[in-house]
């Protein structure tokens, strides 16, 4: 087959005509979308104090770990990192960080599942 023949077949396609109600359907969907309530924005202003407190707590923990790692009193064979990790684990245990991490993970999982459900419903509409 010559190149021209393939060109002729593929470029000689007859266009299809839109159905009569197409424009009306699109405009109805546009109006539906416009009248639908806009999604609730994330409350950054309200979340800000919580985020700041979280960051402060994280920074305080890092400082505490670094301070305690700075004066190694156990065996000198232990590396600085091992010492820092052990201290971090101790502090985490003291403040119940494991439960906080678990709660955070559960919250994140709930958030992801609900977002997927909402997006799935939107795609079906």
């Amino acid at each position: 087959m010559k190149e021209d023949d393939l060109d002729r077949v593929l470029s000689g396609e007859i266009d299809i005509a839109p159905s009569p109600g197409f424009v009306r359907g699109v405009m109805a969907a546009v109006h539906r979308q416009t009248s639908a309530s806009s999604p609730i924005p994330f409350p950054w202003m309200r979340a800000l104090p919580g985020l700041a407190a979280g960051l402060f707590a994280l920074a305080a923990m890092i400082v505490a770990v670094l301070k305690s790692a700075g004066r190694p009193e156990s065996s000198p064979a232990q590396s600085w990192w091992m010492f820092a990790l052990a201290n971090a684990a101790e502090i985490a245990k003291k403040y119940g960080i494991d439960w906080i991490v678990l709660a955070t993970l559960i919250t994140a999982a709930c958030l992801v599942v609900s977002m997927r459900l909402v997006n799935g419903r939107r795609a079906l509409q």
Partner: protein
Amino acid sequence: MSADADRADVEKVLAGDIAAFENIVRRWQGPLINLAYRFSRDRNRAEDMAQEAFLRAYRGLGGWRKDAAFSTWLFALATNLYRSEIRRIPPRTMSLDEIAEPPDSHARADGGTDESRDLAVRRAVLGLPEKYRETLTLFYFHEKDITQAARSLGVAEGTVKARLNRGREILRSKLPRLLDLHSKETR
């Protein structure tokens, strides 16, 4: 002129006149539905895909940077949507080998029409690997304009040329009988 009319209508829509969007839909419904049809080969699905493309265009009108033509922006948006839609639910296709060796090839040779052969070749394009299929579809939709096809696909013109060559090679190698027949009859 279409470009000026597009610009004026977009400005009206952005200023809050939703009805002006209808002019855009009327102007571009044909091309968008036909592009969707070439991706899906299903009329109803093509209209659904085109409607979704218009909705996305409506939502994203503010993102059209006016340095490029509205049609370029609209086709790129629609192409992206159609590609992901076809990836999500691929159209029913025959493999290239099935098309290459039709079960009743003698009957086709004697009684088959140009139309049915052309349809088989067009369906064969759907059986190509994704990147060649998309490139061939866009290239012929844009009336063999490589620049337009490259813009719609968001790739370099050289990439379009390379994919076109490879796509055509695959078609020629998989459909020799069908295409030879067509070639002889049209001479």
